[in-house]
């Protein structure tokens, strides 16, 4: 037997993966460039800003060696705008992800293949008004680790909560589309939301598949029966039971 682990990443794993996101820090003391597996980090000289992986920034923050600059989309004004987009402007779809920083032109370029988790989306120069791929976990981590660096942290917390609820509702509502066999667009959905919704959506799809399979079996039997000239009432009963 395989391990009884659910499919995909657990929320904990998603949060772990999120820690590779780059964030901007304002150092409070000097630190030379560190050679890490992912490449050297920039040397820190206060008060010059520097981009560091989130896990490293959290480490420095915890030791009070740096302050983390919240990404522009995590400011209350930006979150309010996104919430308005989610609830009023397009109540059916998710708000769009941030635009690609390297516009894709006719010429093929090396940057064309970069996709969200590998693009810096939470540094200080990220565009406001768009939720990046790791918005939920990043927002949570930053609110927990450095609420003193975030202006109006309580407001941000409630706005994130609102956004999460609105989008959860959309996620559940999207299960309606699944019934017809179609898959709704997941453009703009974050990593954590997928990890959370996976169980539910996979469950629904699985259930639908089973229903469809039994229907299929029943249909095939009926066809066979019709071919054999046997009574159809039996199969009808079966269908009733399933429903």
């Amino acid at each position, binding site marked *: 037997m395989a391990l009884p682990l659910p499919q995909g990443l657990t929320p904990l794993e998603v949060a772990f993966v999120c820690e590779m996101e780059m964030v901007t820090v304002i150092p409070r003391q000097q630190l030379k460039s560190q050679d890490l597996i992912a490449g050297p980090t920039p040397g820190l000289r206060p*008060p010059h800003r520097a981009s560091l992986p989130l896990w490293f920034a959290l480490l420095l923050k915890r030791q009070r060696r740096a302050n983390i600059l919240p990404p522009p989309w995590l400011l209350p004004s930006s979150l309010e705008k996104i919430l308005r987009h989610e609830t009023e402007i397009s109540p059916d779809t998710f708000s*769009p992800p941030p635009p690609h920083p390297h516009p894709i*032109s006719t*010429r093929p370029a090396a940057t064309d293949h970069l996709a969200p988790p590998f693009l810096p989306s939470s540094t200080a120069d990220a565009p406001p008004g768009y939720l990046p791929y790791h918005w939920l976990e990043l927002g949570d981590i930053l609110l927990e680790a450095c609420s003193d660096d975030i202006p109006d942290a309580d407001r941000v917390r409630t706005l994130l909560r609102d956004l999460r609820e609105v989008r959860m509702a959309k996620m559940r509502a999207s299960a309606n589309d699944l019934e017809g066999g179609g898959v709704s667009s997941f453009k703009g959905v974050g990593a954590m939301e997928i990890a959370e919704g996976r169980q539910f959506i996979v469950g629904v799809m699985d259930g639908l598949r089973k229903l469809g399979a039994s229907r299929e079996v029943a249909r095939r039997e009926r066809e066979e029966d019709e071919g054999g000239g046997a009574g159809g009432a039996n199969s009808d009963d079966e269908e009733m039971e399933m429903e």
Partner: protein
Amino acid sequence: MASTTTTQIRVRGRPAHTAGPTYLSYTPDGTKLVTVGSNNTTRVYKTGFDGEPTNIDDCQEQNMGVDSTNDFFVSGSEDGTVSKYSFDTMSCDTFLMRCTLPIRDVCISSDGKWCAVASDELVVKIVGTSDASSMMYLREQLKPVKHISFDPSSKYIALSCTDGLVYVYSLLNDEPELVRKVDGLIRIVETDSEISSKVVWHPDGRVFAAPTATRDIQVVSKGDWENQRVFANGHSSDVTALAWSPNGAMLASAGKDRKIIIWETKTQKIIASYDYANVMDLAWHPTKNLLSFTNADGEVYIFNDFIPAEYANLLKLGLQPAPFIHDPLTETSANSRRQTTNAAKEIPHRGARRGTPDSLDDILGSDIMGDEDDFVVDDDGAGYALGLNGNGKRPNGDIDGHAGPLSKRPVHVWEPQFHQSFQPGSTPWRGNRKYMCLNLIGFVWTVDQDTHNTVTVEFYDHEFYRDFHFTDTFLYDKACLNENGTLFSSPADHKTLATVFYRPHETWTTRTEWRTELPKGEDVTAISLSESFVTVTTSANYVRIYTLFGIPYRVYRQKSSPTVSCASWRDYVLTLGNGSVGADGNTKLLYTIQNIKRDEICQSEDIVALPDGATVKSVFFSDNGDPCIYDSTGTLLVLLHWRTPSQASWVPFLDTKLLSRLASGRKTESYFPVAVADNKFHCIILKGGDLYPYFPRPLLSEFDFEIPLSSNPKPDSGDGDQDMDATEGDELKKLESQFVLKSLLAAQQQDLVDYTKSSHTQRTALARMEVEIDKTLLQMMAVECREGEERGMRALEMVTLLRDRSGRMIDAAGKVAERYGRTVLGEKIREVAEARLLNGMDED
């Protein structure tokens, strides 16, 4: 009768109304006093006439407010009506307004055109006094308003709301606009309470005062909304009425502790105190030593010679300045001169005051006494300093002969506008705090504690440096901070000399800080600190240079004067001064750069390139040692080739008006320059019309250089599907601006390598920069080639711009042309390559 002053005559109250709230108002010309009360009679007393007042019968009952002009007065009653009465006919003229709920206060603007009405309704209405159909509504407050008051210019109105906030609206536009909610000033009081939360504007219009919950009277400045001086420890119970004297020299307040107190504005001391109970309203006579007040029993007191004789001269003064902790006008007066070119503004009109017989003025003549109030220098032309002359004095020659309105004056003597001195990186006083220095090392700020200041120095790097804090009895007002130490300077006073104080961050001897005094009469205009020298420019136009440990190294007089500012980096010192007058009527700003150690002048009295009317906001050296200037148009200029005499030019590296963050047009923000480092502009973003950063210290922001080439920066549009041509054009534009920027940075690096003992890394950095420029040119060429055959000439021009002399880059260019199939272009490029090879080194 307990009293702080000498014998007092008990003035008898005149029974004017039946018991109940009673209010009064003097007409602006001072001839009449109107009282309203709880009965249906309004009384009009003639000033100086002791007989029975004129009665206006059949008025509304339970009046809650009255205000008057010379021709009419307005009263508001609890039945919700606001009536206008005429003095000519002594009868009710019209009903201006009817509210559904009781009226609480009425106030007429100084021009008499508008009447603001506060009622128990949530909305405050401002109605035209001559045309009751024109109305303005103030709707932002969430609770009823108890008091209202127009500022002396009638451009602002302050509302004391029952939610404990003061709402200030601007009436400059047709639609009133909420400017500010002032929190924590007044206490929460119900509309029908006797306790007052009234805001009263000082007659000079720059501050207002309001009673606080602690029974003090707090002064708050308009504009930065900071607490200024406070009139404290007078009342032992809540304040019920408050009024400034007409010239602002005194403040009268009445409290539930049965006292009326007269305060002197300048010292916030109590001049006199009287015992009268239940005073509801106070009114100063506009000119005479006469104060009238009403109490809750319906009585009116008309109190002649209210101000004790020893203080009566305070009433004769002209308009007095508001009690600021640091008056923004006197702050700059030390080094500003009177400018009359822009002084054509309205002088606030005060009634002419009769001279006292045999006063000191008459005996001595105007020349001696005339200058006593000249400490307010009217450098922004608002006119209040001129108001000193309302008393028949003519202290200053240039006001002579202007009897008519100022706007109709003949053209007066032209005077040049010149640049004021400033300390780079500092802010003016706001409330009792100011930043003395803000840079990338840290920041220095000071708090005024009345008798002394407390100075705090904080660093960004908490590991390298230790923050410190000290009590400062020298009242330092300028500071510089760098890696080695902190430099302070204090201004000269009547008694004390200007001092300069240097404190190194780390020492290996016990005491290395030093302090030196400037000669008498010399004041510091700007200071700067470098790794090797301390530079002080003074009001005597001297540049004084000390070594880091206080040895006077050099003193010379600056050629351009008055001095404006200075900056220094290593051995280089940059001084700014006013030069000759330019075509726009402003003096030209001149700069000089000297190497102190080598005693060389790099640039002598060269002009700072500024557009018409613009001034310099800050001057500093970048981390690479290039002089930078941030001007009032929001442009960052960097001096190029400044080490060679007369080769220097000012290059705009960033125009903050063209930043893409402002492209949407919705944001209005300005930038406070801090430093240039790492090829980035470090600044503090100021929102909401602020001019200077304030507390808590805002975060530093950084912007990349962006040479202003075109005015359409990439807008922050979310859609990725742009027009193809647009993206290509954008790409080319981006490459072009990169090319210019890289060329400029390479030129800076070249200078640095040529003129200093350059290290190997600096030279390789220069070589790398040149390769980068060529790469950018090749990218631009590739775009041109892709665009089509017809762009070939432009592509060829780019090839000729290539800097590389080895021929590799030209080969690469040929390959690019080949790749896009531009054979003719390829041919031409080969020709260029051959020509270069032939000419070899003797080209250029």
